[in-house]
């Protein structure tokens, strides 16, 4: 079967087994690619001769160099090639739709970067019609902060797509995590680096620290030594338009009052 998937300027046309793609097509129905966006072709092929998977593909780190990313582990062999606009995954029949979804997430990260955007490890909260990207490594409190932001819409509590437009940068919802509401995008207003603390306050994040934090939260592409200089240059460009703060917060919803008071 064919699965068409896309966000902002990204688009994938995925050909593969119905049992793998049908569940994804149902869950990802909101992310139909725009007609004008040229898709990359992606083949997801069963490989009965492979040994069965011993772990989810999610645990396999992509090896990337110059926009060509490979994923190799028991039961899987995949490659995303930005230079060709093509990706393929051969997988043992025991592979699950979640494995395929992870491969498509890697493919989307590579395509987004190749086309001027960035996949970003962050929770996206739309507060007073402004988009805030709450970021930090695992355990920093993204999911907690997203939950505490109710009833504000949450584009995703783990991964956002950032895309440039004439007004600046827009953050887009992705299907790669939990969401609240049906909002699919919002103009990006600020980055908030989450810091668990006993007092709630917001301070600008020093430039060097901000650059390092943002770059290290750029999945897949931060691991590409040839693309990493451009990743960092792109973040520098974003930082010239979008401020980056450290949000020291505790487990209660009052932090938005502080954010509103400080950032308006």
């Amino acid at each position: 079967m064919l699965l068409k998937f896309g966000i902002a300027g990204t688009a994938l046309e995925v050909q593969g087994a119905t049992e793998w793609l049908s569940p994804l097509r149902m869950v990802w129905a909101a992310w139909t690619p725009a007609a004008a966006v040229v898709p990359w072709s992606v083949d997801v092929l069963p490989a009965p001769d492979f040994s069965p998977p011993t772990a989810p593909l999610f645990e396999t780190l992509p090896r990337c160099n110059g926009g060509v990313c490979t994923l190799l582990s028991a039961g899987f062999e995949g490659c995303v090639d930005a230079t060709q606009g093509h990706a393929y995954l051969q997988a043992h029949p025991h592979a699950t739709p979640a494995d395929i979804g992870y491969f498509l997430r890697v493919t989307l990260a590579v395509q987004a970067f190749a086309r001027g955007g960035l996949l970003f490890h962050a929770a996206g909260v739309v507060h007073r019609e402004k988009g805030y990207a709450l970021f930090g490594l695992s355990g920093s409190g993204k999911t907690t902060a997203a939950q505490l932001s109710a009833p504000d819409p949450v584009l995703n509590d783990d991964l956002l797509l950032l895309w440039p437009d004439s007004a600046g940068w827009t953050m887009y919802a992705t299907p790669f995590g939990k969401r609240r509401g049906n909002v699919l995008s919002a103009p990006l207003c600020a980055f908030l680096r989450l810091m668990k603390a006993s007092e709630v306050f917001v301070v600008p994040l020093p430039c060097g620290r901000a650059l390092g934090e943002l770059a290290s939260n750029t999945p897949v592409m931060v691991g590409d030594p040839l693309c990493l200089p451009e990743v960092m240059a792109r973040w520098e460009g974003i930082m010239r338009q979008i401020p980056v703060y450290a949000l020291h917060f505790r487990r209660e919803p009052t932090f938005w009052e502080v954010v509103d008071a400080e950032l308006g």
Partner: protein
Amino acid sequence: MLSLDDRLRANPAAVTREAEGELVVVLPEHGKFVVLNRVGMRVVQLADGARSLRDIAALIAEEFCADMAQVAADVLKFSGTLCERQVLLPVAPPSS
């Protein structure tokens, strides 16, 4: 354990950017980063595989008008941390 006779070089895989007087170093293999102040930046810049840590400490002490013994101790400790984080890599001594 490093000594002042050791020679180090910057990890060639590391990607660096200067930002407002600091050096951001990102290691693609690990996806981790460190931010170095001006003195730390000089240590990394001077670690070319040819200079010893003693040479580097002497240059930094001169540049920053600081006490050589204190700088040497700081450079030794700081270089050890950067080696643990693989920002700096040891260079094998030349065989005699």
